[in-house]
C-alpha cells in the first residue's frame, strides 16, 4: 500500500476450449503483469478440473466491442426477417428429409 506500489496490473480476458471440440469460450478475467503470467494464472484459476484443452488470453483493452446504444441499429433489423429461419416454411404433410 506504499506509494511506490504499482497500480493494478493489466486486465486479461480468458477463453478456454474444452476437450469436446467446442470453440474457445469466455470464462472470466484476471490481472497479470504480462502475457506469460496471464497464461500461467489462467491455467491455475480456470482449468483446475480438466475444463480445458487450450487457453487463449487477450488483453481486455484490445477487445473492440459494440456499445449498448448501438443495439437497436445493429441487431433489431434481423427481427423482421423470419424467412431466414427454417421454421418460417411450411413442409407439406408426408414430405420427408426436408
Amino acid at each position, binding site marked *: *500500500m*506504499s506509494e*511506490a*506500489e*504499482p*497500480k*493494478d*496490473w493489466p*486486465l486479461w480476458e480468458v477463453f478456454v476450449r474444452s476437450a469436446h471440440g467446442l470453440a474457445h469460450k469466455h*470464462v*472470466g*478475467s*484476471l*490481472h*497479470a*503483469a*504480462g502475457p*506469460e*503470467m496471464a497464461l500461467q494464472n489462467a491455467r491455475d*484459476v480456470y482449468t*483446475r*478440473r480438466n475444463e480445458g484443452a487450450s487457453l487463449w488470453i487477450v488483453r481486455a483493452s484490445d477487445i473492440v*466491442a459494440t*456499445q*449498448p446504444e448501438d443495439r437497436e441499429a445493429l441487431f433489431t433489423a434481423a427481427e423482421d426477417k423470419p424467412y431466414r429461419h427454417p421454421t418460417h416454411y411450411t413442409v407439406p404433410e408426408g414430405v420427408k428429409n426436408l
Partner: protein
Amino acid sequence: MYTQMVDVSERGLDENSEQQRIFDDKIDRGVTIEADDWMPRAYRETLVRQISQHAHSEIVGMLPEGNWITRAPSLERKCILMAKVQDEAGHGLYLYSAAETLGTSREAMIDALLSGRSKYSSIFNYPTLTWADVGAIGWLVDGAAIINQIPLTRCSYGPYARAMVRVCKEESFHQRQGFEVLTTLCRGTPDQKALAQDALDRWWWPAVMMFGPPDAESKHNERSMRWKIKLYTNDELRQKFVDQTAPQADFLDLAIPDPDLAWNGERGHYDFGSPNWTEFYDVVSGNGPCNRERLRARIAAHEDGAWVREAAVAYAEKRKQ
C-alpha cells in the same frame, strides 16, 4: 464461500428518467443487467459493496482452513484441504473481477479490506481450534454458503450471476468433504466423537447467523429483492438451512445445541431458537475472537508480497523492450 450484507448506503434512486424506466422494465422482465448498461447509482453501489464483501470473505476464509493444512491427519486430507483453500482463492478472484466490471479497481477493494473499511463474513472471525472444526466449516459454513449462493446464480447482474455459477459448481465438493470428515470422526473413538460434537456446539450458532439479521431488522431486504440482487429473505434462507441440516446432524448422531429445535409437522419445517444477535453485531463491528488476527494476516501477506509484485512488473517491462 459467502457474503453477508452489512452496510448498504441509503442513497435514493435516480428516479423518473427514461433510463430508469428502461432499467426497471428489464428487471421486471428478468433481463440481466450487463456491465455497460445504464443502472441506478444505488444499484451499482449496492452491488460493488455486496460483491466485494463476498470476495473478501472468500479470501479471509482461506485463513481458518489454511491453519490446518500442515496438520490434517493424512496426505489425502492435506491434498483435499489444499484444493479447497485454492478454490476459495479462485472464488475471490471471480468475484473481484465481477465487481471490477462495475467500475471499481482491484486496488481500491483490497485497500478497503486492509484498512478495515470493508466488511467480510462474520463467520471467519471464529477460530479453528481442532481438526473437527475443518469438518464443521465444510458441512455448516459451506452448506450455508451454498444455500445463499445458488439463488445468486439467477440474480439480475450478469457478471455476478456468471461468477456464482462457477463458484457453486466448485463449492459442491466443499460441503461433502466436511461432512465426510465429521462422519469419520463420529464413527471413531468416543474422544473423536466428542471432538465432532464440540465443533458443532461452537459452529452452529455462527452458521445460523451467516444469513444476516432477521427480516424484521433488515431494512435493505426489500430493495435488494426488488432489484433481484436478492431472491429470498434472510429468514427464508435460514429456515432452509435448518431444515436441511437438522436431519444430517441426526445421521451423525450429534446434538444441535438449540433446545428449541423441533420438527413442526403443521408448518412442515423445523422450529428453532433465536441466535445471540448482540454477538453477531459485535463480531461484525470488529470485536469477534479473531478479527484483528485475520486482518493482521492479510496485511502481512500483502506487504510481504510487495517485492513479488514489483519484480513481476519489472520483468514484464523488460520483456516488452
